């Protein structure tokens, strides 16, 4: 049995594979091999919709302490003083094409929709501003990542939106 997962963070996707090996796990991260020994979890808790665990692992012979918080679509990891947020990339749903830009424009954080600059059916080009959202009195403009046509709008001016809410859905332009 092999186990593998693709995790995306900050525009990079990492392929992680783990297989049982002796008393532990043999793992590869983007091809680089690691050995994972003992895994102990302390203090497992539910915080809102997240499952939060403190893990003590042995990686390549070194003890490692990590805090992991898992929500439905994200894995937050704090290790060695740094924090990362991973999204699972699902190959079955064309996640492999994500590098070329996504057809969905999502709210980067909870906030208020200030302006919607496009309408359903509009043709847009990559980089074109689509929606202006505001959080903590700062405005940010969200732009199209790809050329395409506006298929659906999930944003109306004045509406409060959650992080990850799909604000604009684009149908990619035919190539």
């Amino acid at each position, binding site marked *: *049995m*092999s*186990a*593998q*997962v693709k*995790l995306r*963070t*900050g525009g*990079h996707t*990492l392929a*992680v594979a*783990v297989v*049982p090996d002796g*008393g532990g*796990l043999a*793992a590869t*991260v983007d091809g*680089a091999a690691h050995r*994972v020994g*003992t*895994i102990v*979890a*302390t*203090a*497992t*808790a*539910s*915080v*809102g919709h*997240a*499952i*939060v*665990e403190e893990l003590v692992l042995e*990686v390549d012979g070194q003890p490692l302490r*990590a*805090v*992991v*918080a*898992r*929500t439905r679509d994200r*894995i*937050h*990891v*704090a*290790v060695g*003083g*740094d*924090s*990362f*947020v*991973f999204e*699972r990339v699902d190959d079955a749903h064309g996640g492999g094409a994500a590098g070329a830009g996504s057809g969905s424009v999502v709210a*980067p*954080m*909870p*906030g*208020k929709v200030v302006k919607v600059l496009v309408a359903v059916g509009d043709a847009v080009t990559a980089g074109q501003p689509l929606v202006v959202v505001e*959080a*903590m009195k700062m405005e*940010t403009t969200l732009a199209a990542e790809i050329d395409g046509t506006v298929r659906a709008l999930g944003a109306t001016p004045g509406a409060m939106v959650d992080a990850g809410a799909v604000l604009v859905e684009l149908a990619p332009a035919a190539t």
Partner: protein
Amino acid sequence: MQRVLIANRGEIAVRIARGCRALGLSPIAVYSEADRSAPHVAAADAAVCVGPAPARESYLDTKAILAAARATRADAVHPGYGFFSENAAFAEAVEGAGLVWVGPPPSAIATMGDKLAARATAAKAGVPLVPGSEIAAGDVASAKEAAARLGYPILVKAAAGGGGKGMRTVASETELAEALAAATREATAAFADGRVYLEKQIVRPRHVEVQVLGDRHGTLVHLGERECSIQRRHQKIVEETPCPVMTPALRAQMTDAAHAAARAVGYVSAGTVEFLLDESGRFYFLEMNTRLQVEHPVTELATGVDMVVAQLRIAAGEPLGFAQADVRPRGHAIEARVYAEDPQQSFFPSAGPILALHEPSGPGVRVDSGIRAGFTVPIEYDPLLSKVSAWGADRRAAIDRLAIALTETIVLGPTTNLAFLRDVLAHAAFRAGNTHTDFLSEHVPAWRPAARADLAALVAAVASARPAARGADGAGLRTEPTPWETLGRWRLGGT
């Protein structure tokens, strides 16, 4: 004075509640609907909801705050910083309601709050000013004349300004008219007061400020200086005391000037006189903040003075109880502000639930926090989460302790500036004390996190494969099965 209403939120409301308790006073919290489960509410003996999330309808609603004070039989109001802290009309309303205002006289707030009046007051008191000029509304011709006299680059600033609003840098005359118009527009929108003035831009200045503390019996002391040059968007993120280039002679001059400025407005309570220090060692009055500062912990760590306690005792009419000669700062103290913001996206604020939180500790480490795990950071307010401060025998020791403390700190959920702060502290120019207010744009212009995600991705994959991923069976201390057993239930990917 027995019950103190804290008209604020977040870490400073928690801090003030501690000060109240140190004196046996009962702290009372106010909160908006977004802050119902905030730590500052739990830190108080009583709490009143003062309105919905937008600050204007809650923390900035005078009637609601005063009604909360009446309902809880509070006899004093501490404003913290921000919100109502530098609002003379609110201070007057508090006093008008028969309550003690824990702050300076409203007249001092009003004078120092108007930058032009503050400049005039400081000048009269013999305090050196940044060369500048008042501008009549729309008079571009005389503005050009004044700017030429001052010499470019210049700053256009709002008379009612603060926090960088209504402020523009002008490199040459061609940009002046447009900058004046933009600053006037912004100032009108932010402060309902479009008056602007010109200031010569000091090249590579340090931001150095002097903490003063005065009672109602004529005692006015200073608690030394702080350097706060590390700023983004005109807001400080790292502050320390003493200033790395301070000399006894310069300190004597600067604290004398601060003293004179504070005296000139009959200052009482805690206040801060801000200066720009140029590369030749000349300094210029910038403004006076008539409130407790965010960065007050570094002064407390170095002097041992509890400034909130001092404010409360002064407000109750007690004498300060110590003189200038009793103030003997020790060692070095430094603070870093932990913000929910993304240093890779122009420090754009972040928000949302705190999923996991670990705050640091250790010798010489102090944490002033306004969050806890499970609390949702609201989008409506300043995204300051906590302040981590460290004291050391010297500057290097203090910075080392702070760097370790920031490495220990874990905030999962919103994006934070933790890694950015650590990189600033590690920067050679910062370590050498070569700081100025453009430090970040000069030395860390396009910051990217140095850490590689490989190890974290491995941890994420291992954690995802564990049975607890689907269990969600609540809190508890457990020993988990070996990887052998764990892998039997692996569900991610693969075939």
